[in-house]
Structures are given as structure tokens and as C-alpha cells.
């Protein structure tokens, strides 16, 4: 049999191969980018929700023993039934219980409204704004205190 002696790919084969490679790169590239974004968001959400959970549980545990509260200079002060005080304040991106106990470290905003609903009851309504990367989470928390 007579052959030309040339070996390799034809133009059609090359074009088909390049088109296939381009499609695969596009599809897998998109999936990878989407997956990375999802993973980043998942991590941020888990971190913020974990912070919110710890902060709210701590405030709740302390607040159940409180009889009154004040909000001043970005500090929530709970007055306990025995007269002692427990303070929660924002320092940088940290939410501190007392002078140095860290209960959340992704805090963007910490605001509070203290209102007396009756002569013997007080509502403390806190909004904790958490930030992680480009993700944000505003978490509401309320507790009522019997004076």
C-alpha cells in the first residue's frame, strides 16, 4: 500500500480537539469558581452563625439573672439581682463580656434598645451585626428582665 509518509492530525481533528478542550475548560472552570465561592460563603456563614450563637447564649445566660439594664456608649450593662453588674461592649471587631472575655470576634455593629414596658419589666433588644469577608449577618436578640 502506498502512503504519503506523513503522520499527525488533520485540520478537522485539531479543531474538534481544541473545541472539546475549550468546552471542558469552560464548564470545569465555572464549576470550580462557583464551588470556591460557595465554599467561601459556607465558611463565612458558619463562622458568623457560630459567633452569634455564642454571643446570644452568653447574654441570655447572664441576662436571666439580671433585673435591669442600661445602654450607654456602646456598652450594655446588666444589673444583676444582687446589685452586681455585667457589661457587654464592642471593642474593634470584638464583642467582650466584662473587660476581656471574648464572645464574638466578627462584630461590625452592636446596638441595643432598653425599654421599660411596665413598672416592673424591662425589654432589652439587641442587634448584633456580624461581618466576615463580604458576607454580613444581622442577628436580633431580645430578653425581658423582671425588675
Amino acid at each position, binding site marked *: 500500500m502506498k502512503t504519503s509518509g506523513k503522520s499527525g492530525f488533520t485540520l*478537522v*481533528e485539531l479543531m*474538534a*480537539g481544541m473545541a*472539546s478542550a475549550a*468546552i*471542558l475548560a469552560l*464548564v*470545569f472552570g*465555572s*464549576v470550580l469558581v*462557583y*464551588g470556591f465561592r*460557595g465554599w467561601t*460563603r*459556607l465558611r463565612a*456563614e458558619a463562622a458568623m*452563625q457560630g459567633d*452569634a450563637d455564642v454571643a*446570644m447564649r452568653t447574654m441570655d445566660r447572664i441576662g436571666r439573672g439580671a433585673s435591669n439594664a442600661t445602654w450607654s456608649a456602646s456598652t450594655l450593662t446588666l444589673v444583676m439581682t444582687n446589685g452586681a453588674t455585667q457589661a457587654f461592649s464592642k471593642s474593634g471587631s470584638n464583642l467582650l463580656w466584662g473587660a476581656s472575655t471574648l464572645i464574638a470576634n466578627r462584630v461590625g455593629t452592636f446596638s441595643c*434598645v432598653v425599654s421599660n*414596658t*411596665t413598672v416592673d*419589666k*424591662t*425589654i432589652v*433588644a439587641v*442587634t448584633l451585626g456580624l461581618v466576615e469577608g463580604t458576607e*454580613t*449577618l*444581622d*442577628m*436580633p*436578640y*431580645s*430578653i*425581658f*428582665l423582671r425588675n
Partner: protein
Amino acid sequence: MKSGSTLVEVLVSVIILAVIAIAGAAYLAQADSTVTIQRNRMCALALANGYLEEWRGTAWGSVTNLLPNPRTGVINNVKRTGFCKWASGSTNVILNGVTMPVTNAISYIDADGGSASYDCVQVTVSVAYPGRSGALVVLQTLLGSY
């Protein structure tokens, strides 16, 4: 004789790999949706709990005044202006850019069939949130005169 794959074989392989990649993307989209729903549910739960705390902090007389006299039955969609700082007088609360309709319902419970001494009010707070159909957080508490 040439060896290697034919064009058809290559195209079939590409299609199979593309289908696998698209299935992976769909899985990731589902995971992303689950994270969003979980976030909304956590916020709805915190919101419902906040409403309950405000009910618990409300004077007994103010609660019973919401009920007709004689105090029987259930009142759905109890609305109180200024109730719950996130509501701003409305029953639609917007939290993290998500609208969450809140429903407060109260019912009087005549515990001893006459005297008001041991009677109480059952409060039900429902917060709907975007999620799979019927996504709802429902919390209840009992309020007494003591």
C-alpha cells in the same frame, strides 16, 4: 494503520464529562440554597424568640385588654404598634434584606372554669421565611397574671 480515538469517541467523552460537571454544579447550587435557608431559619427563630420575650415583658393587664370580654376564643393577627423593635408597627419584618411575615395570635385559657386566679393566655408567634414551601417557625408561651 492509525491508532487513537475517533472524533465520535472524543465527542462522546466530552459530553459525558460535561454532564458530570453540570451535575456537580447542580449539587453546589443545592448546597448554596441550603446555606441560605439555614441562615433564614436561624434569623426567623431569633426573631420569633424576640417577639416572645416582648410578650413576656408585657403587663398582664395590657395582654388581657387585647381580648374581648368575655375572654374566650382565639385572636389571630394581633397587631400592636411599636411592638418588637424590628417590626416598626408592621407585621412584615425585614431582616438581612429578607422579608419575614410575623403573626401573633393569643387565646385565653380559663384554667378553673370561673375564677380568673389561675387563668392564662397562650401566645403563638409564627415567622415565615423564604425556604422550601411552608417554611415557618412557630413558638408558643403561656402568660399568667402572676
